[in-house]
């Protein structure tokens, strides 16, 4: 039925079956839109956030999703700037993932703020000393860049490329892709960093506050590094997942292993710097503010185990596995390590948001807990559903994996 929209030579299931696949995700999206609608219409009292937990599930998941979507900029940097041509096998998929992650995060942010219609105020009256201003500007620009990077993929669709103007425009866009990749890298460096800077500058939250290098706290650099480290891992995981669902190979095994190795190298550097940063924070920063690090870890369930889990179990361990060439050749080890790396970054973002806000700052304060409401979970599930829908449509009608056809013939 829609064969003429699908590229020649690619195996895609029957239209009916595809629609059956889309249906549950569409229903989930509908439910999620309803949840978000409730929050927009009735107000943020629909969530379980409060004056102490000003940031909740949404902010934590936004940060995680943006870190995971870093695969888009990092793969782009490696392919177009460092000329690692073998990664061309996954760059298209990475761009779609990036687009989905960033557009989803921005949508959730619009529901998260109390007055979404005032979003343009940040542009009109920017506070250039605030990390959040930097994040806003950068992410808006980057989303635009991602959309422009997605355009050639779209225009290369079998039917769309018949239109002569689309064909020629796609050709020209591809010629300047390296400029967009460079701009994307520059923007990503800054917003990934500023997302970390959001918490590192909080003097009032000694748990999160870090020493600065120039105007940027150490969390700025640690966030960039961890995002770059986990980007390839997430691309790896999603590629494997798509291969599993599609039922055939999409990418050569050495490409997967290369992604794993890139992750491993960056992850080990990150773990080392994070360890140093933690030691400095424990021995210098925190005492200077009149606190001791033991105070922060004295509240259950956030004991010292969480620090150990973040740096060792989900940081050092996957890094060591990914650096071992023999382990990388085994799918099981490679995927587990990649998964652990992603979990480690998620845990790091969790610690920076939820744990920071849970901890008291004054003697008559209390350690408080927070559990998201179903509206919050629903809104986030909408983003997941939206992501799956966009990716599924892109996978079916566009060429996300250039190696797929050659692999089919083997």
């Amino acid at each position, binding site marked *: 039925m829609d064969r003429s929209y699908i590229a020649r030579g690619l195996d895609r299931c029957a239209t009916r079956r595809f629609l059956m696949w889309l249906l549950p995700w569409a229903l989930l999206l509908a439910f999620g839109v309803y949840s978000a609608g409730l929050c927009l219409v009735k*107000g*943020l*009292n629909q969530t379980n956030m*409060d*004056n*102490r*937990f*000003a*940031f909740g599930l949404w902010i934590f998941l936004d940060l995680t999703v943006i870190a995971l979507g870093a695969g888009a900029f990092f793969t782009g940097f490696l392919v177009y700037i460092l000329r690692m041509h073998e990664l061309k096998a996954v760059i298209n998929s990475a761009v779609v993932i990036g687009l989905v992650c960033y557009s989803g995060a921005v949508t959730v942010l619009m529901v*998260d*703020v*109390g*007055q979404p219609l*005032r*979003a343009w*105020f*940040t542009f*009109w*009256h*920017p*506070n250039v*000393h*605030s*990390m*959040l*201003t930097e994040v*806003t500007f950068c992410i808006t620009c980057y989303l635009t860049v991602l959309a422009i990077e997605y355009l050639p993929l779209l225009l290369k669709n079998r039917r769309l490329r018949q239109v002569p103007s689309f064909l020629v425009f796609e050709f020209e866009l591809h010629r300047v892709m390296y400029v967009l990749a460079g701009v994307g890298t520059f923007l990503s460096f800054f917003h990934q960093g500023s997302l970390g800077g*959001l918490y590192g*500058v*909080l*003097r*009032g*939250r*000694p748990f999160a506050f870090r020493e600065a290098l120039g105007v940027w706290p150490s969390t700025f650099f640690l966030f960039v590094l961890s995002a770059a480290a986990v980007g390839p891992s997430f691309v790896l995981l999603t590629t494997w997942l798509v291969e599993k669902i599609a039922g055939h190979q999409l990418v050569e095994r050495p490409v997967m292993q290369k992604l794993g190795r890139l992750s491993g190298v960056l992850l080990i550097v990150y773990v080392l710097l994070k360890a140093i940063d933690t030691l400095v924070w424990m021995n210098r920063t925190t005492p*200077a*503010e*009149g*606190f001791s690090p033991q*105070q922060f870890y004295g*509240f259950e369930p956030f004991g010292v185990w969480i620090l150990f889990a973040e740096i060792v179990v989900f940081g050092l361990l996957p890094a060591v596995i990914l650096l071992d060439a023999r382990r990388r050749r085994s799918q099981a080890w490679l995927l587990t390590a990649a998964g652990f790396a992603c979990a480690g970054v998620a845990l790091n973002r969790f610690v920076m948001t939820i744990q*920071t*806000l849970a*901890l*008291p*700052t*004054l*003697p*008559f*304060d*209390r*350690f*408080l807990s927070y559990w998201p409401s179903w509206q919050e979970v629903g809104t986030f599930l909408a983003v997941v559903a939206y992501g799956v829908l966009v990716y599924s449509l892109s996978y079916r009608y566009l060429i996300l994996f250039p190696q797929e056809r050659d692999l089919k013939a083997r």
Partner: protein
Amino acid sequence: MAAKKPARYGMVIDLDRCTGCGACMVACAIENNVPPANPEATERTGITWMRVQRLGNGRPFPDSRAVFFPILCQQCGHHTPCVAVCPQNAVEVDAATGIVDQMPQRCLGCRYCMAACPYHARYFNWWDPAWPAGMEKTLNPDVAPRMRGVVEKCNLCHGRLHRAQAKAAAEGRREITAGEYVPACVEACPAKAITFGDLADDQSEVAQLARSEGAFRLLEKLGTESKVYYRSERPWVHQAVKSGIGKEPQRG
């Protein structure tokens, strides 16, 4: 026009006098058009620009003692956390008075300032404000009510300062006299525990009290240079404040 030395309005709260009655909380809410809490509000989602907190000495009866801390915006003068982080400059330190002014009209409701404030002095409007029928007659015409989705906090009853300045101008005076401008909480306290004034005026009572023995500020090591001082002559109070975080058990 002669150059006027900028004021630094602040207060000293005498903890030995505060009984924890909460009259300051009520007066503040009435003065500043804080809406009655929505039926679904909890102690963590209500709006209390002034909030009295309790701190005990942790000892069992008969040695247990309690002190009450009225917590309001500490009007941080240096590295003001909320001013530094607001993405659209919806908070600013007024140069003439030192008051940290919140502009709800510009607030986006991102709540970054609430994460930044170590004193938890900022409150978000989780609901649309609603006054029961008839209660709208109690609204203060000098203060604008806020809408849902924006952050608000104590601004040392800035409206009262404007009223005093307008009155002085109408009487042909350039400056207001001390005592013409007092925030609602200061006025309402039955124990007269709060002394308010211009900390930059060395001769003022508040400046002298702030320099006195037994005066301290919360979280001094953070370097926020807050303009709200607390004062006590009881040593155990000073010890309790320095004892750490999260010391107070859950109450009611």
